[in-house]
């Protein structure tokens, strides 16, 4: 557990966006890991299997906390207030800016882009996890990438030319 905890905690944090909630999600994920260990036959890589369990635990957590609603909202209409402060620190590295930009995304966009672009989960699997269609996942992914690109490089190249 000591060897994997930081990976598990980081993934949970990137999805739920709160340190204390991420700890709760990590604990829940480990309960699931130990329950499922006997059934783990090694067809998948252990790391991939673990990432799936954490993603599942994080989404279940958001549902339980009543934040699952955010996952099904139309993300075009929401923009969290912190997003405006993302580029204020001139000393921040691109990675810091990106991490903060990610944290400022609505849950519906953040969950999708984290699972796909950070952890490489297939569209289909993300759709099943979120209880939505692959098409909806692709639309959110597109929006999330565009917002992140704008946070990193400015909005000079918006889609609307």
């Amino acid at each position: 557990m000591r060897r994997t905890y930081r990976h598990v905690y980081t993934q949970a944090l990137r999805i739920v966006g709160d340190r204390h909630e991420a700890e709760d999600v990590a604990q829940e994920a480990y309960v699931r890991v130990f329950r499922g260990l006997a059934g783990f036959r090694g067809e998948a890589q252990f790391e991939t299997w673990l990432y799936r369990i954490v993603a599942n635990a994080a989404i279940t957590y958001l549902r339980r906390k009543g934040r699952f609603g955010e996952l099904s909202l139309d993300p075009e209409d929401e923009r969290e207030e912190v997003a405006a402060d993302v580029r204020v620190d001139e000393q921040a590295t691109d990675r810091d800016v990106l991490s903060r930009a990610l944290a400022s995304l609505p849950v519906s966009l953040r969950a999708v882009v984290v699972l796909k672009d950070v952890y490489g989960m297939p569209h289909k699997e993300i759709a099943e996890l979120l209880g939505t269609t692959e098409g909806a996942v692709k639309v959110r992914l597109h929006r999330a990438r565009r917002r992140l690109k704008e946070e990193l490089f400015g909005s000079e190249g918006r889609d609307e030319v």
Partner: protein
Amino acid sequence: MKCEEVRPLLADMAGGVSDRAAEVEDHLGSCAACSAELGRYRATMLQLSALREDLAEPPAGAVERALAQVPAWRWRLLARRAMVDERVRYAALSLGGVVVGAVAFGLIRRRAARRDVSVAITGGRA
């Protein structure tokens, strides 16, 4: 294709999935602005994938709290390790062999001692 048609497709292009990739590529060949925009998307995605190894620092004592939540985990973990870790498995098998050997040796000695006592009492008579 015109720039305004290409721009909405660039995020998907950067992700390697686009039904109109050939047309977009065609346009990119003659449009520096759209090529630069695709480069920005690609750089964003490259940084996103690098986040996987950019680990956050958990709150102090988080691992211990997780372990304390289910104390039996340690034993399950040890049992699992014994199953998958060759060194632990061989150590467990060796230890088991030593115990079995010691018990067998003890039993043989005990039986021999009993036989000696029996011979001493009966004087070797059957």
